[in-house]
């Protein structure tokens, strides 16, 4: 039946070229009213460019956009909104110091505040998007913030709602709630364009999927009739390699032991850690799951020594008390660190790869001789990284900001692993990285572990944790749950642990919560 109507949105031959790449190459896309349509692809496949064209942020070099069967030019987002296109971006555009109501009022400047309050509460009720208009955004969870963004769109009554990677910051429970909302919206014969690289989600939620790879449309399919594996192969374009985990036969000694760690944050909306306990043994990977902003950054800084001394507790690295050691002293003990911020912390945008190698490898690799830096040796080390970790670059003298996100992360992880650490602490190892690079990074981490090193992974990506880790703990509001074997816990249990404060003595807290 639907096929007889003209599609709500129809793109033909969309072409968009940037100076260094073809982001969209002759892409066709039809979105029908009442359907949840997935736009599936790796990072860099051209999904974001395409939706920016639809939303009027970018203009196509070539191609045609039809809306309800009529040719349109979408010059800017305001015009897109007038047509009835709403968009929720991956990175929220909310002011943390303002309330929910104030944030929404900013988008609708001509509305009376009291009327607006009623409307947003009502809209929220209808779609199961409960909002508290007068709470400040900084107090809200990522799921709640996203609800604000969605309600803000819905108040403008869009015919087409575009969501860019909406679940990347949500717990499994929050994700399920959002899916119900989206199904309700589709039942009102609105169209939803759902951008994701999470295959399981697309399979359970979407009526149709368009798969992009390297800027081209490779396939249209009905996701529910596909398997995760077949979708992944279409998306990545080659057979997906799975990482082999080596069975730990004998317990190795503890490489990292943290006891009763407490820190005080100096940031405005920072999180204080309290009573954090954890242990990682050689040959094992501990994954720390949790929603962003629950103390992950603070934990990373405390473990790397970048935050200075903690207010209480003890950190032992490879058997040595390291609580008051600085970052390089910890590196010299055999630890290596990959922080979450790639550009600006792990690497410097305007420095070459060679200089970026020196950044963390200077002391452990002994690159300074007689007071002078041996740039030749650093360059050799960098070439090793590029070769062993398949970093796509024009050369070791390229600036770090010339690399794509995935390649830069391969470089950073490679830089740490090639220093042969006995303890590797990684935060968000594959966040925002394309699937190919993510698989490569996972493989290298697993290889390092197979040599007997201990690894701690802090990640928002539950799939990643369940794929890689032997043990799992959940961080929430600056507290850490007890550590559990991954085989003895389900993602749903982990989801429940993400919302509560943990006292490690009472393991069963979440069951009664």
């Amino acid at each position: 039946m639907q096929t007889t109507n003209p599609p709500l949105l129809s793109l033909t031959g969309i072409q968009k070229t940037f100076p260094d790449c073809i982001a969209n190459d002759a892409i066709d896309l039809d979105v029908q009213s009442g359907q949840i349509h997935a736009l599936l692809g790796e990072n860099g496949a051209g999904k974001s460019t395409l939706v920016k064209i639809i939303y009027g942020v970018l203009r196509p070099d070539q191609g045609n956009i039809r809306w309800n069967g009529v040719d349109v030019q979408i010059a800017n987002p305001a015009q897109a909104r007038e047509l009835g296109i709403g968009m929720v971006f991956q990175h929220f555009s909310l002011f943390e110091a303002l309330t929910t109501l104030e944030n929404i009022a900013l988008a609708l400047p001509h509305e009376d505040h009291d009327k607006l309050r009623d409307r947003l509460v009502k809209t929220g009720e209808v779609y199961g998007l409960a909002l508290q208009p007068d709470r400040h955004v900084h107090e809200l969870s990522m799921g709640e913030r996203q609800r604000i963004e969605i309600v803000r769109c819905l108040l403008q009554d869009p015919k087409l709602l575009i969501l860019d990677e909406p679940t990347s910051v949500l717990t499994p429970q929050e994700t399920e709630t959002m899916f119900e909302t989206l199904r309700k919206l589709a039942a009102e014969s609105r169209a939803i364009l759902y951008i994701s690289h999470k295959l399981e989600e697309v399979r359970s939620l979407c009526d149709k999927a368009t798969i992009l790879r390297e800027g081209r449309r490779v396939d249209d399919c009905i996701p529910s009739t596909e398997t995760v594996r077949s979708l992944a192969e279409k998306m990545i374009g080659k057979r997906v390699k799975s990482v082999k985990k080596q069975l730990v036969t004998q317990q190795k000694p503890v490489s990292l032991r943290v006891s009763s760690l407490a820190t005080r944050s100096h940031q405005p909306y920072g999180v204080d850690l309290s009573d954090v306990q954890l242990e990682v043994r050689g040959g094992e990977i501990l994954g720390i799951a949790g929603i962003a902003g629950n103390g992950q950054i603070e934990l990373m800084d405390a473990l790397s020594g970048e935050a200075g001394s903690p207010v209480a507790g003890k950190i032992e690295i490879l058997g040595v008390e390291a609580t008051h050691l600085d970052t390089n002293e910890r590196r010299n003990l055999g630890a290596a660190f990959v922080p979450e911020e790639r550009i600006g912390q792990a690497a410097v945008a305007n420095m070459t790869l060679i200089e970026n190698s020196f950044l963390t490898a200077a002391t452990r690799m002994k690159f300074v001789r007689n007071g002078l830096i041996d740039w030749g040796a650093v360059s050799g080390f960098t070439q090793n990284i590029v070769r062993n970790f398949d970093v796509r670059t024009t050369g070791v003298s390229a600036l770090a900001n010339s690399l794509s996100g995935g390649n830069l992360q391969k470089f950073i992880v490679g830089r740490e692993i090639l220093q042969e650490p006995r303890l590797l602490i990684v935060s968000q190892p594959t966040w925002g990285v394309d699937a190919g690079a993510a698989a490569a990074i996972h493989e290298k981490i697993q290889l390092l572990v197979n040599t007997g090193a201990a690894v701690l992974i802090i990640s928002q990506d539950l799939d990643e944790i369940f794929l890689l880790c032997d043990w799992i703990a959940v961080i929430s509001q600056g507290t850490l749950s007890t550590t559990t074997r991954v085989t003895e816990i389900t993602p749903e249990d982990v989801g429940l642990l993400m919302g509560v404060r943990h006292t490690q003595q009472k393991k069963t807290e979440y069951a009664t919560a």
Partner: protein
Amino acid sequence: MLRLEPRSTQSLWAAWLSPMLALTLTAVTGGFIFLAMGKDPGIVLYIYFIEPLTSASGLSEVAVKAGPLVLIGIGLSFGFRAGIWNIGAEGQYIAGAIAGGGLAVYWYESTSSLLLPAMLLTGILGGMAWAAIPALLKTRFNANEILVSLMLVYVAELLLIHLVQGPWRNPMGWGFPGTRMFPDAATMPLLFTGKRVHLGNTLILVAPFVAWLLLARTQFGFQIRLFGLAPLAARHAGVPGQRMVWQSLLIGGGLAGLAGVIEATSTIGQLIPDISPGYGFTAIIVAFLGRLHPIGVLLAGIAIAVTYIGGEGAQISARLPSAVTGLFQGIILFYLLAFDLFTRYKIVIPARQEARQ
């Protein structure tokens, strides 16, 4: 409307072309100004930019002016690279002159060959001490080093005036502000008889090379650059932030102090209120014109020195006001900043957007 968008790549080529273009356009603009003043722009520009380089005495004068500018500019470039905005080099220059010159005031009859080296050393220490104040206030109380270092310029100037009019005034100086003339043992040897260029000026050949070696080849230089480019990455690399603030300010202050005492012991030969024609401020232009690169600073220092000497020549032979020198330096900085903007940003004319307005 026009919009500025950051460029995705910045070429090294453009970074070095921009000061060249700035100098060229300054000359062109200057030409129009001279024309408007009723002078022949060709002749004045020749006096300004070429004549100083055509005679031995002209070259000697250029070296005398470039000496302090390059020395201070190199010191400042360390701080600017580290993101520490010391703009009080003028005060550190004066503090260095006071600290070093004080020795010659006290031992005014000395013939010891140790006097001059001792003065240079105390001059460096004086400049460092003056720069240590913003360093201390910044690391202790997070006080803004721009304001603190700038305000200390005026403190140093007033201190100098107080000293040369009061306790250190030349008893045989008929009441003019100024100390006794320094003894021979406290005077920089001249390089050539009859020319003012002196031993201290040879530092402009040594300092850029040492600075380059420090910045490009040592861990300290790497840390300075890292700290300025990405403070969080510096922390990740284990760079002690407070020490970077101290070191970059002390280097800037020490070199400015050295420049100050060299000036006092050479061309001036005493302490007077007008010991600096604004070298400490002009060196900021020199540092940026030279892209904060030691060799670039050397070239920029020479270029700016030429405008000083050319300005003097233009006053004498073309009867132009002395303000023209400052005008030229201002125009250079203006063009440099403008071109720098375009090496980092491009102008975008939004297409067909106005249909919606």
